[in-house]
């Protein structure tokens, strides 16, 4: 009750200030009158009586002040007044305010953006109930289809369906174990008679959603009964897909869509925010049972390892004993299924094991890929924040000193010290909060920009760019702490100043006596900046080396069109006609210089390895299996790979004609070190070593790894299948060599493909350059951000140097005037100021450059074709920094030369 009354009364005096004030005034005046009347009774006249009362009891105004200061509303009011005053003063020096707010916004924004990403990528668990119970059977991200024992010391990651069933059924510690494909598959989906459109899909075991604990948002999710050969085909749709591609149309649930040409009922929709088992760009649009896997040979074959497993431990169970049990089960199964392990590898069975790893974040592909990158970014943004804080400290200190005489006047006029400190603190906090608010904006746009850079080419990234609550509070706290810490210091020094001394003009100085603290801050800024600039130079050079390297093909004027005829209902016997029609029609598109088909194109993310047996030689298992690809006529000229010897694959290499192959240089030198490879034979299976005759040698080209050397590779004609080999003549890419910009021709290509077969879905189409560029997403992200951070650091350091120098010049105006009066010329003055400024820069460089050496070493394994101590880059960074610093310092230095001695001597 009384608290309420108190609050109401306080609020009344806050908002009906005038009335409350009037009443108090009236009451006090009445009081004065009554007291005076008392005195007048004793014989004083009115004037004397009033004077006596005021002397005795104080004036009405004083009493009012006392009464007013008693309520809590007084504190609110003074704070509000302080804030308004702070805003007014800050607006009076817009340059200073803008510099501080911008600095804070960048420092806080960069950090908030990075922490938002870390929170979203590294810390956020899978959006499923009790994700901590989920464990993955495996510890790395090997993909995609393997056989036999597993590499990396036998840690099992990929499982056959049969091994999965055995582990699932014999490990009661798991309430469920789910299996799923590590990759997302391209799908062609159509509804009714419309043309097929490209989507992403994932094949999962029937208990997948039960294992994850996800409930349907609408309809139902998959059940184990859906995952059997005879079951009616169903699929589950991602909520995001339902929203974006189907407009949340409820009639989709239960409707039949044609997925890869086959009718399939949409059973239900997953809850919003669910993206599956792996955080990745373009998550699955559809989840389908493993039984619907289009490559039906994988499921029944216990020798094919192609599934990732995730299990849910029953609550309260520890992982270690389960892991031990799984190891026994795994080895037992392998011993009982000796046919899946080749003879020569059986001795490795005792080393095969399962490493149970927490799957609270799902399969950590993104996390592993971006771990180093994010760590680097955290370091960079922390450095930037340090520089920003140093800058703000410097600006506030300079301002505090510049306001010293003003403070002295206020102190002399009787302002209490506490009040002055509070006022200055309010100013810093206002600044900090403004900076923090601007920083949030920077953070939001920054996070989005980083995501776009990191996932170039993605349609959908299931990562929220909005800063989460912890991140938000983190950044607000950060800005407040910065404001308070760097507000207290100048406030304290200023309030300690002796008013008398300050008024006498002690602020004027001779010699460069700007406080040691400010100078050290500039030196630190320069040191941090040079480290960042060198880092930026190194990663930028590394990215340029990567992008401009000789790949063994030409990206300019090339367009890659991805198709998958199998998705549109093609069977092997229909393929020759399709390839023939494409081969005839594509080159006729105006502007096309040549066209070809292949299984996959370079650096597209696809790869296939298969061992070869050279006719007349003993099998050699020392090397990893060479890569292979299937290519059509004109392939090498279309992608710009040079033929070194022999001939390329041409129209005459049809099924039935002699089987031929083209190999690359590495293949030739590895398998035929001292012989001529042309005319030699090899095959892909025992007893078939004479299948293919080598007819040509092409230059090495990079298909998989952009950093290492090209793999040994052999190229086979599209449709040649020697007896005994299963048919594998599926085409996945059309390569086009175009005159002019490849993007310009896209509509014509779509039309032509549709004229060949309207059902043939184009999965994606992009220039060869873009396809290659997407291999460097992470490198580019790091390079661009390091450049950005380096540039910001440089700007901040220059602002800092400018501030300190300008401040020093202002303080030394008097001295400079005297020097000029005594005969110093402009050159002397310029030198005087610049020497002091450049000494700080030199010292900063002397500290920063050696510090960059170990920093570069940390980067060394990320760099391509550039040494971590590259003297050119070090020198270049130092020159840029010194140049900018010189410019920053020369502005106030020039101002110093324009000092008029007469004015300067009269100064203050």
């Amino acid at each position, binding site marked *: *009750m*009384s608290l309420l*009354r*108190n609050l109401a*009364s*306080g609020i009344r005096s806050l908002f009906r200030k005038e009335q409350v004030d009037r*009443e*108090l005034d*009236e*009451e*006090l005046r*009445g*009081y*004065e*009158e*009554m*007291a005076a*009347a*008392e005195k007048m009774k004793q014989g004083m006249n009115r004037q004397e009586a009033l004077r006596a009362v005021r002397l005795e*009891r*104080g004036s*009405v105004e*004083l*009493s*009012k*002040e*006392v*009464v007013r200061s*008693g*309520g*809590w509303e007084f504190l609110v009011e003074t704070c509000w007044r302080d804030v308004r005053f702070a805003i007014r003063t800050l607006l009076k020096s817009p340059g200073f305010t803008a510099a501080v707010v911008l600095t804070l916004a960048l420092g806080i924004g960069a950090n908030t953006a990075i922490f938002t990403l870390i929170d979203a990528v590294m810390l956020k668990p899978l959006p499923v109930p009790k994700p901590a119970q989920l464990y993955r059977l495996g510890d790395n991200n090997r993909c995609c289809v393997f056989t036999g024992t597993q590499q990396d010391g036998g840690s099992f990651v990929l499982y056959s369906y049969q091994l999965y069933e055995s582990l699932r059924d014999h490990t009661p510690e798991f309430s469920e174990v789910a299996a799923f494909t590590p990759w997302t598959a391209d799908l062609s989906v159509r509804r009714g008679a419309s043309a097929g459109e490209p989507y992403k899909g994932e094949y999962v075991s029937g208990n997948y959603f039960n294992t994850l604990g996800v409930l349907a948002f609408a309809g139902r999710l998959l059940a184990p009964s859906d995952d059997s050969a005879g079951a009616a085909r169903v699929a589950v749709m991602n909520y995001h897909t339902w929203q974006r591609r189907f407009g949340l149309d409820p009639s989709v649930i239960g409707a039949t869509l044609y997925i890869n040409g086959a009718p399939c009922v949409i059973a239900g929709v997953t809850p919003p925010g669910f993206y599956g088992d792996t955080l990745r760009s373009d998550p699955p649009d559809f989840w389908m049972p493993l039984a619907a896997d289009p490559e039906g040979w994988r499921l029944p074959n216990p020798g094919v390892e192609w599934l990732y497993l995730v299990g849910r431990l029953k609550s309260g169970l520890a992982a270690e004993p389960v892991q031990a049990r799984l190891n026994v089960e795994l080895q037992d199964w392998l011993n009982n299924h000796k046919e899946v392990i080749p003879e020569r590898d059986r001795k490795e069975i005792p080393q095969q094991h399962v490493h149970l790893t927490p799957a609270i974040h799902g399969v950590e592909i993104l996390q592993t890929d971006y771990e180093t990158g994010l760590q680097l970014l955290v370091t960079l943004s922390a450095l930037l924040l340090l520089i920003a804080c140093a800058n703000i400290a410097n600006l506030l200190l300079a301002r505090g000193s510049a306001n010293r005489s003003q403070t002295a006047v206020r102190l002399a006029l009787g302002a209490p010290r506490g009040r002055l400190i509070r006022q200055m603190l309010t100013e810093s906090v206002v600044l900090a909060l403004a900076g923090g608010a601007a920083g949030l904006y920077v953070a939001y746009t920054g996070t989005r920009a980083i995501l776009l850079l990191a996932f170039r080419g993605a349609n959908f990234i299931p990562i929220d760019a909005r800063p989460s609550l912890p991140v938000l509070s983190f950044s607000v706290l950060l800005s407040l702490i910065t404001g308070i810490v760097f507000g207290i210091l100048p406030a304290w020094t200023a309030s300690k100043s002796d008013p008398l001394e300050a008024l006498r003009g002690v602020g004027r100085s001779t010699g460069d006596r700007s406080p040691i603290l400010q100078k050290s801050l500039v030196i630190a800024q320069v040191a941090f900046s040079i480290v960042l600039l060198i880092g930026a130079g190194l990663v930028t050079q590394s990215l340029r080396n990567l992008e401009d390297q000789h790949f063994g093909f030409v990206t300019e004027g090339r367009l890659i069109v991805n198709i998958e005829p199998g998705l549109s209902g093609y069977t092997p016997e229909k393929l020759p006609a399709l390839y023939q029609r494409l081969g005839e029609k594509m080159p006729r598109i105006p502007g096309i210089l040549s066209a070809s088909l292949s299984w996959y194109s370079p650096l597209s993310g696809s790869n296939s390895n298969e061992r070869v047996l050279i006719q007349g030689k003993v099998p050699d298992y020392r090397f990893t299996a060479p890569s292979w690809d299937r290519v059509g006529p004109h392939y090498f000229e279309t992608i710009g790979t040079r033929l070194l010897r022999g001939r390329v694959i041409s129209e005459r290499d049809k099924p039935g004609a002699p089987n031929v192959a083209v190999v690359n240089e590495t293949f030739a030198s590895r398998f035929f070190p001292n012989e001529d490879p042309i005319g030699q034979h090899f095959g892909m299976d025992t007893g078939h070593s004479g299948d293919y005759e080598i007819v040509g040698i092409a230059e090495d080209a990079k298909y998989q790894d952009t950093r290492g050397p090209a793999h040994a590779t052999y190229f086979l004609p599209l449709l040649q299948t020697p007896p005994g080999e299963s048919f594998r003549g599926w085409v996945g890419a059309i390569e086009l060599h175009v005159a002019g910009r490849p993007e310009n021709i896209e509509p014509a290509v779509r039309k032509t493909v549709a004229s060949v077969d309207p059902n043939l879905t184009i999965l994606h189409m992009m220039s060869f350059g873009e396809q290659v560029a997407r291999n460097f997403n992470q490198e580019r992200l790091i390079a661009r951000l390091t450049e950005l951070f380096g540039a910001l650091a440089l700007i901040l350091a220059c602002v800092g140097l400018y501030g300190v120098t300008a401040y020093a010049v202002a303080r030394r105006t008097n001295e400079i005037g005297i020097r000029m009066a005594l005969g110093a010329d402009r050159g002397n003055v310029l030198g005087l100021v610049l020497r002091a400024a450049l000494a700080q820069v030199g010292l900063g460089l002397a500290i920063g450059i050696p510090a960059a050496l170990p920093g570069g070493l940390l980067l060394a394994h990320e760099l391509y074709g550039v040494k971590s101590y590259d003297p050119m880059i070090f020198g270049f960074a130092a020159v840029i920094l010194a140049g900018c610093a010189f410019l920053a310092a020369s502005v106030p230095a020039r101002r110093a030369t324009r000092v008029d001695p007469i004015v300067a001597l009269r100064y203050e």
Partner: protein
Amino acid sequence: MGDKSSDLVQGTLDMLVLKTLALEPMHGYGITVRIEQMSKGVSHVNPGSLFLAIQRLERDGLIKGEWKASENNRRAKCYVLTEKGRKRLNSETREWGRQAAAIERILEAS
């Protein structure tokens, strides 16, 4: 605000105002005069501290103010003790007696 002020003088002034108003409703000046009379000139009451105390007591609901016409035809705010204020005065008086006795004992012991 706080029920018990650690500031003895302030707390005392609050109590003295309550005591004065317990006798009869009164305006600010009247309270001053009465307190100064009763203490035989020992206590001096400034209007600042007095009205601060009045504001505090009013906010705590111990007294109630009302504008009335005064003797010389001016409007003056007249204060009345509320029921809550009377109870508070009783408890404070008891507490004061207890503490004063305690202090006296301590002072005499030495």
